[in-house]
């Protein structure tokens, strides 16, 4: 490794080409505690497309808040106060995410990449993290493969995953009397996987899935599928759709009189979805949530600060990005360096309670961050007293039961 003065002379081109050759052990080394004297946090997400409101620019703001808060908490003893937050847009395309992640790690010397709200993109970034030996904390992506078959030493999964979404709602709702289920899912990889996970969880809880109904993706008109789902009078109709399809499904479901006796469950629902569809078509729908801004005092206090800054209530993914960035900085502080291997060692096994995580623990074996999650229900518009207060927490699912047990994980690091 070069001394810092020489590095400046040689300029960034050398640094880039060195990093592109793979390097060893990530950034840092030599006499420096922090590589290049500063920490670089890269937020890679969707700044303009369908996941913009779920994560996007507001998550970048959340990460900046985390940096400010962390600096304020470590005034004198901070290992460094030179912390930069950089951001890139992958426009929901996995190949773009792959290139951007490479650029962030190599050219912009990012010590960590955060977020990436899309499963395929998240897996691509995880591979980059593994090859470059740099930290990656996924927040917005759903695939449980990140801590399963595709797990690696440098990748962590913070907020939620597909296993936890299915397991939470399917078990809680079946336990409370929803014995027969119709599952309507978009007919591509994510939907098919969700259908399987839900079916497994419903059956494990003693329920029965009487109909599996695949729908084209994307799809505008759900009338025929709703008719099919209603045949056989199931106790529960579950929709595994996201974004626009979710809106189409529930608008048309409500018009077809679906709100009478059948319970409805949403497979992947976030605050941003409820905001964009409106509470009326979704009222009474239950789903698993990893965090809600008005769920307790601590979350609420942070959400108030967030709103002051950004002008809207935070989604679970915004809060998750704050938490992930903050805890990463804590780990760097404890390690006294930004060397990836040392930081990872500090993160592994760490028990955390912060604005986002309740009874949180970073599992050392698969890097799944387990924490309490919630069965949430969309309120009736009549009961909404405050802007964006769409959710009611029905039950808390304790951390130990919420996520995939280690013995079912295919992860080997």
């Amino acid at each position, binding site marked *: 490794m070069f001394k810092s003065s020489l590095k400046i002379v040689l300029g960034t081109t050398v640094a880039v080409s060195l990093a592109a050759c793979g390097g060893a052990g990530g950034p840092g080394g030599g006499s420096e505690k922090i590589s290049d004297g500063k920490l670089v946090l890269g937020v890679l997400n969707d700044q*303009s*497309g*369908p996941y*913009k*409101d*779920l994560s996007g620019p507001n998550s970048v703001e959340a990460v900046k808040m985390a940096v400010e808060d962390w600096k304020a908490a470590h005034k004198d003893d901070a290992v460094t106060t030179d912390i930069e937050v950089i951001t890139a847009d992958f426009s929901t395309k996995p190949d773009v995410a792959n290139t951007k992640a490479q650029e962030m790690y190599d050219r912009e010397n990012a010590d960590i990449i955060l977020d990436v709200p899309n499963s395929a993109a998240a897996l691509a970034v995880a591979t980059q993290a593994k090859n470059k030996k740099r930290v990656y904390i996924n927040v917005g992506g759903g695939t449980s493969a990140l801590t399963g078959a595709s797990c690696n030493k440098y990748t962590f999964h913070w907020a939620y995953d597909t296993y936890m979404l299915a397991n939470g709602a399917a078990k809680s709702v079946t336990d409370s009397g929803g014995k027969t289920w119709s599952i309507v899912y978009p*007919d591509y990889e994510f939907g098919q996987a969700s259908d399987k996970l839900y079916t497994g969880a419903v059956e494990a809880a003693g329920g029965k899935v009487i109909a599996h*109904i*695949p*729908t*084209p993706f*994307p799809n*505008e*008109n759900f*009338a*025929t*599928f709703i*008719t*099919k789902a209603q*045949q056989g009078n199931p106790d529960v109709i579950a929709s595994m759709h996201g*974004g*626009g*399809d*979710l*809106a*189409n499904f529930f*608008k*048309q479901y*409500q*018009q*077809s*009189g679906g709100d009478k006796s059948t319970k409805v469950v949403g497979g992947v629902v976030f605050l*941003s*979805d409820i*905001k*964009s*569809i*409106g509470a*009326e*078509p979704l009222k009474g729908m239950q789903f698993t949530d990893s965090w809600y801004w008005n769920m307790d005092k601590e979350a609420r206090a942070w959400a108030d600060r967030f709103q002051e800054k950004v002008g809207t209530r935070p989604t679970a993914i915004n809060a998750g990005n704050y938490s992930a960035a903050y805890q990463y900085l804590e780990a760097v502080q404890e390690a006294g360096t930004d060397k990836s291997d040392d930081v990872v060692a500090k993160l592994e096994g760490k028990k955390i309670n912060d604005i986002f995580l309740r009874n949180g623990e970073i599992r050392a074996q698969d890097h799944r961050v387990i924490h309490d999650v919630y069965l949430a229900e969309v309120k009736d518009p009549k009961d909404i007293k405050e802007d964006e207060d769409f959710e009611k927490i029905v039950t808390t699912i304790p951390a130990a039961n919420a996520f995939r047990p280690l013995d079912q994980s295919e992860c080997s690091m």
Partner: protein
Amino acid sequence: MGSFIQYTLQGLASGGFYALAALGLAVIFGVLGVVNFSHGSMYMLGAVGTVVALDEFGLSFWASLIVVPLVLFVFGVLLERGLVRWLLKLDPLYNFLLTFGVTLVIVDLVKRRYGSSGMPYDTPAGLRGQIALGGLELPTYQVFAALLSVLVCVAVWVILVKTRVGMIVRAATEEPDRSRALGVNVAMWVTPVFGFGIALAGLAGVLAAPTRSVTADMGTNFIIILFAVVVIGGLGSIFGAVAAGFIVGLVEAFGQAYAPAYAQVLIFVLMAGVLLVKPTGLFGSGEHS
């Protein structure tokens, strides 16, 4: 049998959206020879306009049914006068590219102003619930949307067949060269017809707002199906567009009901089949091809 009838009605309801929008596309193609790629974004503007009319101006759904298409009519007139007109003399490809570009600009402007995720819009109070129809429970809104689109299609048809204006437009649509040769001033009708076609797409958009996800991207998929509809019906054939709209709606509904994996592809199989047997479409005259 009960569900068969239900699927049929659902197919007709969704066919109504296609028929309305395709009617506008067919009229524009007929009179101007322009394949209006921006039609999907006009449908989107109709839906987004309905939401904005309620949120920012307090306009009810019923008022939007009239106001939003009128605003889009004016928008269409400006678009024709300002842009489309100047390329009419060139190869039709130029206007196709122009309207494609217009789509990109409109969609991005809407995203910039209103974001890329959906905008909430509830079913209007009078149209909630279901109505019983011969032992079947049908969503009131779907029945309303289907009836209204049929009504508008029939009204347009009557205007085209029974009035002098209609006759000129029809002549200009289906036999533009011969009409010109007979001294019909086709050029005079170009601007209002373009605006009218855009207004029809906007009306389909207004009808979509309570029942579909309202986003800047909602027209992107819609336009693809719409092109399939006008190709099946015969480019430039007004009756063909409407008939094909309902046919495609039915094919989609039965496909979804009995062969869901093939539902989307069926429409394009139908299109390919029609093109093989009758390249001018089911009702096309062939003059434009």
